[in-house]
């Protein structure tokens, strides 16, 4: 079957307004060719137009921008790649100060406007420069019979990778047997899960008998190159539920043990998760469907022998790090960063990753400067005004300058919640805004 998964189309052009029609036409035609419906392709095009126009306003006209449209089967992504030194870096914050623009108060940037139109928005620095990416997912119909699937007790079972139809059946069984559980949003659409599996965004195992009856399953993906995100294990009224659950977890770990991932995060554990497999990293505050806030545990399993490491931290973070490293038994030499009168940048830049489907924004440092606190405060204000309350900040302790954001984070209401070991250049500390850590 020919699919649009993993097809790339690229265009290199200058950040000049005369090229705007070319840029928008490229995105629209590519999105349609890569499988988006007309309406979704138009939305992606408008978001891309906003970004390109923004680049034209903030960069020199002779600077090249690489545009790439990528079909992932269940989504189309448009990305812009460019060199940071050729653009005014300050313009890449979500909001800009009045001194940069002519208006009063906080001005929204094109980045923020574009982010509202798509399902995922990501602006970050990467090895070859800066990258803005816009993702629009295909729309999937919600099946009417999502919670009615049944299966039977299996006398014997084996663990296997499911065929697409089996995977859809697994998703329906999960909804049927785990009513009231918090499930990944994608599971509301079995067709989407099947497409995500075809695009290798999801992988799964089912426990089935020789006749093909499914007794349980587990689903996982790679949210980043270094982490596996798994949910489950799911076991559907089976007589040997603990045996089945353990085999599913064993096989899942075996399948990812030799990949580039350093750890598995399980944010959707079930009561069938066997004890002794995962460690508790901490909790994050999440909003339930009823609008209440609850603490959700984040479970973690390290996949490698930890070699120990040096991490860089601001003294403000030292107590938290010592407590957590001691609790999780990670050998770390914590080195303090300090200000010794060196020349400092006046401005800071913070990237943002929006996940509109989950109503989550993750901020990451791109550049540190004296106005870090003001920049963070503006970002939070504008996000909260937009109705986004799940705001995270990820600090990489392998990059000493990241830790300079610590005082600004504390003053703007962020708390350190958990550590993701070895998930960046070093360990990553996840801060959450507006919550009290446990």
């Amino acid at each position, binding site marked *: 079957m020919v699919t649009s998964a993993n097809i790339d189309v690229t265009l290199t052009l200058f950040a000049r307004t005369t090229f705007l029609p070319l840029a928008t036409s490229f995105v629209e035609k590519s999105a349609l060719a890569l499988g988006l419906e007309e309406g979704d392709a138009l939305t992606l095009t408008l978001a891309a137009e906003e970004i390109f126009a923004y680049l034209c306003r903030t960069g020199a006209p002779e600077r090249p921008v690489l545009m790439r449209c990528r079909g992932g089967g269940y989504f189309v992504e448009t990305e812009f790649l460019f060199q940071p030194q050729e653009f005014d870096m300050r313009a890449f914050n979500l909001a800009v100060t009045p001194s940069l623009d002519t208006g009063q108060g906080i001005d929204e940037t094109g980045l923020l406007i574009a982010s509202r139109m798509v399902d995922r928005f990501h602006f970050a620095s990467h090895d070859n420069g800066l990258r803005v990416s816009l993702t629009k997912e295909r729309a999937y119909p919600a099946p009417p019979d999502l919670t009615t699937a049944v299966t039977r007790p299996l006398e014997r079972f084996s663990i296997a990778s499911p065929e697409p139809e089996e995977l859809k059946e697994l998703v329906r069984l999960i909804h049927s047997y785990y009513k009231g559980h918090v499930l990944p949003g994608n599971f509301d659409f079995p067709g989407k899960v099947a497409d995500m599996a075809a695009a290798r965004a999801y992988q799964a195992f089912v426990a089935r008998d020789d006749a093909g009856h499914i007794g349980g399953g587990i689903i996982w993906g790679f949210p980043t190159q270094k982490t596996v995100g798994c949910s489950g294990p799911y076991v559907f009224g089976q007589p040997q539920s603990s045996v089945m659950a353990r085999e599913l977890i064993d096989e899942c*770990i075996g399948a990812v043990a030799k990949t580039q991932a350093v750890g598995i995060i399980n944010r959707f554990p079930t009561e069938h998760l066997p004890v002794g497999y995962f460690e508790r990293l901490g909790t994050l505050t999440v909003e339930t469907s009823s609008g209440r806030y609850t603490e959700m545990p984040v479970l973690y399993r390290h996949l490698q022998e930890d070699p*120990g490491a040096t991490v860089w931290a601001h003294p403000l973070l030292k107590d938290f790090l010592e407590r957590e490293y001691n609790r999780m038994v990670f050998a770390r030499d914590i080195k303090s960063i300090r200000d010794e009168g060196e020349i400092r940048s006046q401005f800071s830049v913070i990237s943002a990753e929006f996940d509109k489907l989950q109503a989550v924004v993750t901020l990451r440092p791109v550049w540190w400067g004296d106005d870090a606190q003001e920049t963070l405060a503006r970002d939070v204000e504008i996000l909260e005004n937009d109705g986004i309350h799940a705001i995270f900040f990820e600090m990489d302790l392998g990059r000493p300058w990241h830790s300079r954001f610590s005082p600004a984070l504390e003053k703007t209401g962020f708390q350190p919640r958990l550590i993701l070991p070895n998930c960046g250049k070093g360990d990553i500390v996840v801060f959450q805004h507006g919550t009290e850590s446990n």
Partner: protein
Amino acid sequence: MQVALDRLLPEYIKKFEAYTPSKPDAELMKLYGCSRLIRLNNNENPLGPPPASQEVLRRFPPEKAAQYPSGDAFYLRRKLAERFDKDPDQFLVGNGANEVIAFVIKAFCRQGDNIITADKTFAVYEWVATFSGLEARLVPLKDHGFDDQAMLDRIDERTKVLFVCNPNNPTGRYWNRARLRRFLDLVDGRQIVVVDEAYCEFVEQPDFPDGMKLIEEYPNLVVFRTFSKMYGLAGLRIGYLAGSEELVAAIRRTCIVYSVNTLAQESASAAVNQDDHVMRTRRMVNEGKSFLTRELARLGLPCIGGEGNFLMVRLPMSDTLAYRSLMKQGVMVRSMTGFRFPNHIRVTVSTAQAMEAFIEALTTTLKAHEIP
């Protein structure tokens, strides 16, 4: 200037995760804050090399380091030939057994070919195949041993080499003489069969097959052996393969000469006939295993054991967490998630003192991370 890595790197290399070896002991001790480090992670021999090899090491004249070694381990191959009643040309010596794995794969495989081995065994067969752009077909173990029939079932016209680790690292299970013969008979010369006997010197079972003796009957058989385990020369990196003259002559085409240093060659030559050392080591391993199995049973921990100087232990906790906790106490084991055995550790059977220290540290670890 930027290197166009994206264009230069083959896809199979981009996807391959490089192995990160442990930091040096001193660095680990500093990071983990421990005053000792008992190494039970690499199945090394705590008795060290045999006395004759130790003598070679002591007497090695420093000025000899300025000269290239024998390019093809001339004297060592002679010594091996005498010991195993073969021709020196039936041996190829490499910089550890890892290097001879690469010799074999390079000699027989090209793009589109595949090798077959087990999913839970010594990882280097799979690694070398994968980063050479070849398919590694991994057959699940059966009762913790290699599944001969399933391996035979996976053979197709592009299968070139079958790797059998006998006894298997890390489960210690082995194929007996009859089973290995049956396997070789069924392969019938259509593929190369590699039998990795890295731990054979530890095996005392009467039905354990001696690959060296089968070489004359099966011209497609390659036997791997090493001086890193029983002979305590892991730090010098030296291992070898043996096979029929015709087969070894073919593999020699991909062999990197001069890769094995003089000290390693001379120490290994001295080790070949040191049977007393073998007996002493076996005695230590037998005593250590008895102690370990008894103590692990007392702690309620199931063991997967068999032949070799190691035991695998199933833990009621994550093995990677246990690794960190044991390291804090100065005991280094191998966590087995990377071998696809989650929640298992592999422990080298060592001296009584080391085994006692391990049990004490493990007891502390289990208490500290007790599941309510």
